[in-house]
């Protein structure tokens, strides 16, 4: 297996264009599991850890630009946690400290698992995903970027550069249900915000359908919102939980999250 290690984004894009079969790797918390369990043997890895442009975050016109290489630990630091509290709370639920130091928001987007913990918080933040290739750049709303379980809109020659997210315009929270109290893949999760600028409630669920899903409602029409969320989900029975439980839990989480954010 070849490991390609570009130093700049331009170089990374050139390599990705030459080697569309190269699997991008950042923290490796998903990719290495696939390799170790012998589920994938890619011809090449594109190691993005040396690409400075993907690191960190910046502020642009009230939005936050989160580099694809932003780690969960970084998302939990005070400045970001104050602006994007649901993402910080979600990051807190990811693995243990070692995993949070390695795992990245870009990796969560690349894997596009319905259980990706960062996805519901990004959805309630109206996230747009910035993609780049040697052909140019494009922005795709997260709702369109996620196309199916572990499928996304990324072309073979493209890389995820960043996620552009609106800062919280009101209280937010994130909740994740798992059968143990830490280090667990979500059985079902929910991010919710009361958006005071738009006078609406935005909620997004994870692990309750083929992709993480977003449901919004005007603040004046909150009655029955928990049931609407549960109805919008399309959960399945799997080793982690039953569809019936996921629906029930989603409804409980939504009611609690609304109460938490309206207090």
């Amino acid at each position, binding site marked *: 297996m070849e490991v390609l290690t570009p130093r700049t984004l331009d170089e990374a894009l050139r390599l990705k264009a030459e080697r569309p079969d190269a699997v991008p790797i950042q923290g490796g918390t998903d990719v290495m*599991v696939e390799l*170790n*369990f*012998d589920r994938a043997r890619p011809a090449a890895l594109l190691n993005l850890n040396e690409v400075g442009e993907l690191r960190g975050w910046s502020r642009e016109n009230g939005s936050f630009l989160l580099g694809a290489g932003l780690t969960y630990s970084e998302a939990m630091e005070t400045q970001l946690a104050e602006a994007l509290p649901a993402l910080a*709370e979600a990051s*807190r*639920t990811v693995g243990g400290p070692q995993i949070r130091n390695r795992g990245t928001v870009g990796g969560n987007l690349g894997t596009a698992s319905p259980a990706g913990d960062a996805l519901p918080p990004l959805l309630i933040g109206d996230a747009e995903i910035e993609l780049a290739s040697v052909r140019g750049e494009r922005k795709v709303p997260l709702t369109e970027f996620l196309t199916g379980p572990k499928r996304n809109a990324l072309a073979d020659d493209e890389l995820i550069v960043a996620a552009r997210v609106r800062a919280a315009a009101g209280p937010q*929270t*994130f*909740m*994740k*249900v*798992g*059968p*143990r*109290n*830490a*280090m*667990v*893949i*979500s*059985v079902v999760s929910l991010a919710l915000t009361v958006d005071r600028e738009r006078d609406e409630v935005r909620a997004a669920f994870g692990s309750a359908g083929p992709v993480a899903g977003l449901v919004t409602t005007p603040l004046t029409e909150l009655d029955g919102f928990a049931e609407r969320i549960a109805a919008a989900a399309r959960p399945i029975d799997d*080793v*982690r*939980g*039953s569809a*019936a*439980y996921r629906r*029930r*839990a989603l409804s*409980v*989480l939504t009611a*609690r999250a609304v*109460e*938490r954010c309206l207090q």
Partner: protein
Amino acid sequence: MTTTARRLELGRVGESVKRIDAIPKVTGEFAYSSDLFAAGMLWGHTLRSPHAHALIAEIDISEAVGMTGVHAVLTHADVPGAKTYGLEFPDQPVLAFDRARYFGEPVAIVAAEHPEQARRASEQIKVAYQPLEPVVEPEHATEREPIHEGRPTAGHGFRDDDRPNVVRTIVIRHGDPDAQAEVSVSGVYELGIQDQAFLGPESGLAIPDAEGGVDVYVATQWLHIDRDQVAPCLGLEPEQVRIHLAGVGGAFGGREDLSIQIHAAMLALHTDRPVKMVYNREESFVGHIHRHPAKIWMEHRANRDGKLVNVRAKILLDGGAYASSSAAVTANASAFACGPYAVENALVECTCVYTNNPPCGAMRGFGAVQSCFAHEAQMDKLASELGIDPVELRLRNALAPGDSLPTGQRITGSFPAAEVIRRAAALPVPEPEELPRDPLRLPGGSGNTTRGEGVKRGVGFAVGFKNVCYSEGFDDSTAARVRLTGSGDGLAAEVHCAAAEVGQGVVNVILQTARTELDLDDVVLGSATTSSVGSAGSASASRMTWMAAGAVQLAARAARDELARRGGRLGPGEEIEVERVYHHRPTTPLDPETGQVSGDGAHVAYICAAMRVVAEVDVELGLTRVVWIGTAQDVGKAVNPQAVYGQIEGGTAQGLGLALMEEIQTRDGLITNASFTDYLIPTTLDMPPVDAELVEEPEPDAPYGVKGVGEPPTVVSTAAVVSALRDATGRELTRVPVRPDEIVGLD
């Protein structure tokens, strides 16, 4: 005269001693079996059946043998000696021939220069399978075609149950099994498949000795029984196979059966090169046996005063594809089915069946875990029916020395059941914590799911017991060798014992015993190997402390006596070397018809524990936080108290795992969660602090009065945790692990 405090490492029996392997294990310097290396070694890989049940028409290795780096591709045809092996019955093929009986059964093995080459070569082995309908429902296994030809476990003095696929049936009739009483409660209980989930995967290194023999370095629980299974399959004499203990990364019963031993030795002898094998995590989940899943029907009849009159139990265990230690697990599940309570009348029927599910065998608690979950749920139910406090009900029925078990065995040694109940019940239960609090201190933990909404608190109690040492006539003796040499002005000693250090701390027990008996600091422990000392028996059945201390005590006293004969001194170059074998008191089989003891009795001694659990349950989401655990355990005598507390905490965590989350899931016999992503074990946020009380009532037959400590916490904690969950939720919760669905009422 001055006295100086002895260094912590040099402690005698009864002192808390720092484990000699503690620092290397914590710093990562300890060499586990997966760290072994030999110059020029090859890597072995196992090809496994993707089917739970299939006939094997043909195995074509022609492509695989020619691949780059490949040195050997072996199948059943290459097994030099016996084609099958097993702990109790040789029903398990070294490599599958004719038929694969479980998902992951080894079919072929490959040795190559690089593990990846071995893996790729194994993919090119063409096995012509003809899939068969797997037998996956234990309740119907006896109505299906036999999975094994013949009846591998028949004719061993067991009850004659000639239905297909029966591993063993035990029926215990005690008193009048039809006796009636004033009240009756009944229930049906189920347990899923628990895995030992040790962190160190199966691994080892086999090195040919250039004289036709082989040395195998492996993580195991009983070196000599490995040798006695490996040698016949290799067609070698026992002395030609030397098994050496490599660093064990956890065992819990899962290393009693063989894993890589024969395979690595075959590859090494075939290639005349050292061969290393290491399972990956997924392979480990299919590469060892599990705890038997069970379905238990139980009825308790009692009088209004709470006195038990009759217990009727039917227990069904799923043994999976091969016998392993199922016959002994069946005996334990039935012998302890009524709990540590005096019952005049009982009818216990226990059957273990063969299926095409994952093979099951030994795991910490060994049959008693399953029964305890059922009998303790029944005791709570009875307490509620009678309006008697659950602790008081247990005290009124607690077994005591002089009482008999339903097998008719009289309890002759120490058995402080009432004392452990009183001591555990007396531990102060912590007050509920105030709200608001950090979500980490609420059900759901880091998932941030509640600020207190839906949370109810419950308190549970349970008592459990089991036996120490092997039973039913098995003489699991332990040998130890002590060598005394002159050293300067004084003496030095070296101790050899093949007891497997599996993390439980037996190395310290051996050293503490030797230092105590020899009254000497300068004692070293040789490595555990079949080549230098007789069998130690298994690090199982909570027996290793008792048996190792017994053997080392015998050998050390013999060496001391010899020293006295020589005037109490050894000159330079002089030495004394003695080996002694310690036997526990003999046991005898159960009568196959009545399940009653014959002769001396089926068991050597008993150990019990009581536990109180406080849990908070989010009843709307079905999530749990166990807040506090208090326990009192009958330990006989704590040789190394610090290690005893460690065993109690670890054993409790393992039982808590079964109560709340640990389950191997299968679909048509295939394991669907063979990873630590989906087979969950408790984290530090799931496991509360444990207040443990040691009840030291010496066992009259045992060295220093010791008993065993590894299993009782696991036996009792599953039952105790679920008892707390029932108290919090008001639901029956008859199956473990308890699923959130059941707590919120979806099932």
